[in-house]
């Protein structure tokens, strides 16, 4: 009993001395604090206040009453979300596209990095990289415009298709192609950029490992599975965990640019729904509830993924 009391007082004292030390530190290095202030205020105002603002998911938020005077309604909006059939469809679209992005989009940059790593001629590697990184810097509006043109009836894809005797297809207006186009185009845009991190990790592998393996008679394939991939594993796991935490964040811009009324049934995702029903139609509380649900799913998946990763590979974010 007495020991726990002393630890509590010790903790209180150290807490107190921490504030005193902080005060001293602030007085001594006030310029550092002054320089950090605008940035800290910015993070508070534009990244943390909106998170706190999510409480309106539990209110019937009215814009004129604000957060303080709008009535509290508990879980009403969450109940509505899961009984409203449209939203179930939107959730299904989001989950499916996310899943495809993860399965096909996540390994793509790893494979590209491994392939680029095998190119020995420096100038050739560098020219390839220049081309692969370019689309990352072009906005989705431009990429969307280009893809709509390429896949239009008189676009180059259909022209080539017809030359080989095929029938022209209106790809962007057909629901059955929508998700594939979304996944393929985002791989196309980001694969080079995402490969940079893996390429950096690959240059960090000790070359003597490969020399020793060659002396021992290990072929290229054996070197890949026994040296390269195990060395990349920490990087892969960290990026996989980050990707899983962002599982339902598909990137509003891409889908918003690609969506047409004809592809709504398969392409409308949580973000585009929240934008339409929230920003445009003013249903603030329901759409905030949707957003909160999305964040909670992301957090839960990150936590579970982190746990599994720590148990299986020893890599974890926290």
């Amino acid at each position: 009993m007495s020991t726990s009391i002393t630890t509590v007082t010790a903790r209180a004292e150290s807490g107190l001395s921490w504030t005193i030390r902080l005060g001293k530190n602030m007085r001594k290095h006030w310029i550092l604090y002054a320089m950090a202030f605008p940035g800290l205020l910015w993070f508070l105002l534009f990244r943390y206040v909106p998170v706190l603002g999510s409480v309106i998911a539990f209110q019937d938020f009215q814009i004129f009453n604000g957060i303080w005077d709008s009535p509290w309604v508990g879980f009403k909006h969450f109940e509505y979300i899961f009984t409203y059939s449209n939203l179930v469809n939107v959730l299904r679209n989001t989950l499916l596209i996310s899943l495809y992005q993860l399965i096909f989009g996540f390994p793509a940059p790893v494979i590209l990095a491994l392939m680029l790593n095998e190119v020995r001629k420096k100038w050739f590697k560098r020219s390839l990289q220049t081309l692969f990184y370019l689309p990352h810097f072009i906005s989705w509006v431009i990429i969307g415009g280009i893809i709509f043109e390429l896949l239009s009836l008189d676009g180059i894809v259909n022209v080539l298709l017809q030359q080989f005797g095929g029938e022209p297809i209106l790809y962007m207006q057909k629901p059955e192609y929508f998700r594939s186009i979304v996944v393929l185009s985002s791989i196309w845009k980001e694969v080079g950029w995402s490969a940079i991190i893996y390429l950096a990790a690959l240059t960090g592998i000790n070359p003597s490992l490969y020399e020793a393996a060659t002396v021992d008679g290990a072929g290229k394939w054996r070197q890949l599975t026994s040296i390269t991939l195990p060395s990349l594993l920490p990087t892969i796991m960290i990026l996989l965990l980050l990707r899983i935490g962002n599982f339902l964040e598909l990137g509003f811009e891409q889908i918003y640019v690609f969506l047409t009324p004809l592809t709504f049934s398969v392409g409308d995702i949580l973000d585009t729904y929240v934008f339409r029903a929230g920003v445009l139609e003013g249903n603030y509380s329901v759409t905030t509830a949707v957003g909160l649900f999305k964040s909670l799913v992301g957090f839960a998946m990150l936590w579970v993924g982190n746990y599994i990763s720590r148990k299986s590979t020893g890599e974890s974010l926290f």
Partner: protein
Amino acid sequence: MKNRSIGEIAASYSNHILLTLAAFTMILPFINVIAISFSMPWAVSANKVTFWPVDFTMESYKYLLSKSDLWRSMGVNVFVTVAGTAFSMLTTVMLAYSLSRPEFMIRKPVVLGIIFTMIFQPPMIPYFLTIKNLGLLDTVWAMIIPSGISAFNLIILRTFFIQLSNEIQEAAKIDGCSDFRAMWNIVLPLSKPALATVGLFYAVTYWNVFYHAVLFIRSSDLYPLQVKMREYISDTENIISGINKTGLPYNPDTLKMAVLVFATIPIIAVYPFLQKYFVHGMTLGSVKE
């Protein structure tokens, strides 16, 4: 690389060929778009244009350059990019410097709090309402201030500052140099490559502003290029489908492609400079502590 088996040589060749093909798919779409924008409408409708202009013409560009709304959006973009990059660099550099100093006591919790914002995006509706409450809605500042600091760029700069030698800074401080002077006169001149990387990242982000414009901008005279371009491409306002007459040296297709090229040129123009720095910058940003 002696004694390679035939299988390995074949694998190496096919690797090179596959990579070259994939790399070509990265630029062929752009080349196709450029070719269409410089071709006459008859050639485009007859599907004759692939990767080289047919019946070369610049009429689509001449028509577009006469549109004042496009120039207005270009002006919005230039303002947002210049003012935004300046604002972002100022706040990011100062915060990154403080966070790089070991004597800044709260740096650990602050860095953690910032990394948290990298994983979780601000929720759209409360974000929208925050901007609305701050009175920024439908002003040009809504495209600048809310995207002020990128956590990723901040970490790049901070890591770079930490890697710099501490000795010169300490010596300068003993000579009575303040933290701000130490940053301004010693750290920043040594950090030019990192500053160039981050500055270019910011500039490209501001140039491509779309999400914040769709979310926060209502008046069409504040539309940035991306939003204006989308208006042209999806032709929601019937800007260009009205000019689909025969005999004109341009048609909706060539005009749309010309708009795309028009908005991409600035990015292509800075790309060589960007490329010089960003690989190094990306690697810095991923250094784990």
